[in-house]
């Protein structure tokens, strides 16, 4: 059987390894484009959030490439994501698309169901092969995140626009092709070396911006209008606060064993929000405070339109922003968002941060900063 799955940033790389490792043919959907979104929007309920629409588009495009089944994650808690799999299954049935859907519910829902679903998925292979596959999948998750993290630092300094993205795509391809742990490690090493070799302009005045918010819109560049690349080009080191590998570690592995997840971080959210609100709402508040403490210049908060957990966070962030003196820009995206509008806001926010930083440094030192003439004494 040929199995597909929804896109979410670079996660197609480990997903492909996982599906192939348990004895199926993996169909990676074509990269998300306007066509994907248009397909999804046509069939999804209007008020559903953006990720659901893009997912549906992914399935339909994958089906055209021969996919017969879908692997999807379930979920618990107040976020609508928990219903995605079931709703998507019904939508596909309604429009007469025959795709079998396997939804893996997290183990918090009950271990027996979790194990049943996993053993159904892995029924073709031996226990040893399962262990190998999990190890390779996990290695690919962390490898992709490692490479992306490095690209976010490099891009802010690149001397020629686009160099960093080229290196990133090339090294991700190597990770995708790797068939052993050693090859994955080698791909990461090659990638890191190439990032070092990218021609850099180290005199550039760069900013550090933390990016927080809803996980899908953070991870899928199509959903966030290539936010990280655009910021990098504007000379911003992006510190994304949510990573797929960390999410798996905290939300599936640790939380399944009732271990405290990132307690120190969440303590920072305490004065503003004392309990879990679904999705990453609580983390968004905590990360904003944590980033401010580490001296980031600003925060960009991104969420899909109608995302409940992040709306809760959005209403709290102005207070965090005031307390920690850190500028916050909230971007809400859906199928009606226009790229130009998002970019205008990003550019204006970067200007704001530059001026903010200068004013702050001037105030703290009481002298003119950087030993050169102020660019915008009037702003």
């Amino acid at each position: 059987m040929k199995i597909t799955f929804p896109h979410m940033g670079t996660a197609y790389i480990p997903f492909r390894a996982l599906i192939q490792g348990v004895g199926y043919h993996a169909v990676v959907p074509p990269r998300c484009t306007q066509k994907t979104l248009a397909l999804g929007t046509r069939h999804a309920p209007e008020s559903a959030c953006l990720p659901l629409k893009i997912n549906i588009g992914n399935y339909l495009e994958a089906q055209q490439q021969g996919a017969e089944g879908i692997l999807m994650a379930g979920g618990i808690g107040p976020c609508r994501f928990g219903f995605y799999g079931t709703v998507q299954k019904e939508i596909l049935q309604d429009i007469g698309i025959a795709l079998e859907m396997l939804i893996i519910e997290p183990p918090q829902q009950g271990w027996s169901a979790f194990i049943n679903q996993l053993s159904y998925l892995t029924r073709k292979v031996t226990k040893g092969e399962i262990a190998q596959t999990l190890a390779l999948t996990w290695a690919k998750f962390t490898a992709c995140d490692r490479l992306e993290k490095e690209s976010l630092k490099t891009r802010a300094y690149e001397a020629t626009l686009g160099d960093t993205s080229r290196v990133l795509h090339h090294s991700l391809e190597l990770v995708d092709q790797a068939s052993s742990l050693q090859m994955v490690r080698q791909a990461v090493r090659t990638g890191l070396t190439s990032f070092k070799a990218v021609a850099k302009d180290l005199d550039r005045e760069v900013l550090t911006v933390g990016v927080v918010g809803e996980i899908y819109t953070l991870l899928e560049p199509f959903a966030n209008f290539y936010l990280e690349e655009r910021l990098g080009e504007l000379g911003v080191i992006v510190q994304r606060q949510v990573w797929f590998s960390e999410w798996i570690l905290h939300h599936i592995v640790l939380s399944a064993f009732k271990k405290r997840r990132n307690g120190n971080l969440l303590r920072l959210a305490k004065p503003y929000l004392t309990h879990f609100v679904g999705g990453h709402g609580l983390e968004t508040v905590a990360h904003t405070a944590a980033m401010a403490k580490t001296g980031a210049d600003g925060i960009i908060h991104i969420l899909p339109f109608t995302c409940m957990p992040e709306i809760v966070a959005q209403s709290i962030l102005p207070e965090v922003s005031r307390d920690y003196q850190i500028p916050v820009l909230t971007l809400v995206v859906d199928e009606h968002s226009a790229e130009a509008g998002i970019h205008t806001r990003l550019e204006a926010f970067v200007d704001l941060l530059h001026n903010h930083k200068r004013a702050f440094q001037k105030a703290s030192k009481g002298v003119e900063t950087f030993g050169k003439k102020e660019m915008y004494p009037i702003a």
Partner: protein
Amino acid sequence: MPDQESLCLGIDVGSVSTNLVLIDDHHNIVYKKYLRTQGQPIPVVQEGLASIEKTYPKMKIQAVGTTGSGRQLAGAIVGADVVKNEITAHAVAACCFQPDVQTVIEIGGQDSKIIILREGVVTDFAMNTVCAAGTGSFLDQQAARLGIPIEDFGEIALRSQNTVRIAGRCTVFAESDMIHKQQVGHSMADILAGLCGAMVRNYMNNVGKGKQIRPPVLFQGGVAANLGMRKALEEELNCPVVVPPAFDVMGALGAALIAKEQVEYSNQLTRFRGFGVSERSFQVDTFICSHCANHCEIVNISIEQELVARWGARCGRWNVKEKNSKYPHSDSAS
């Protein structure tokens, strides 16, 4: 006479209007031109340049900045030293007019924004996202429907004795509510004043939500000409709202100020292509890159077959190398 002087030019290409401003060394506006864009940014910019040349044939341009939604295109045509987003441009212009400004309300043809400043530094801003209610285009449309010139809109609204309440969540519903109020027999003045109130409420809910609005408040953009909107804002905010004399060209003024700073700071010569631009022919062609699944729409701008700018690509594949700039079209402040 500014004939021999060197002046800085700011161009704001917006959805509805294209504004050109010339400023002297003391940041005074010596010339301003307000043109309707009418969906044709290139000829309009050329027309604006031609009329400047006619007024000041011997003048030298020291720096050029562009802003507004058509900033990239305008920047490529004239050879701008700075291509700046409209939020920063409006903030810079507002600070120049009133250095202690804390809130800037800008309502243009199709967008509205709020900019919060403290001690001359922008600390927060917002732009309308989901709704264009309360912007110039809608007021234009309603004035036309009621058969009154848009210039008289505000004055008529000020004559209102008993303002009626009009639903302002959505412009379509606002319109049907207005028609209803007309049919019930309310006066034109009361209805227009009610419409202003509804537009301001919509603005406060959409754009001003959660922002710390403190005086001095500046009101700029084309809609600031509307006295009714100004009064409605004052009533809503409970503080005086100042409309700067150059309210309709503040974006262009900001672009000129930023360009002046940039050229003086970097000690470079301007990249302005000269007024001859108004007579040259520009070609704009687009194609869809099929190199990857992104299918980017690439735009080529050329002057007499020579490629001068290109954009639209998500990757660096189609970048045009520019001689004078390290980061082509970079919009960051440094």
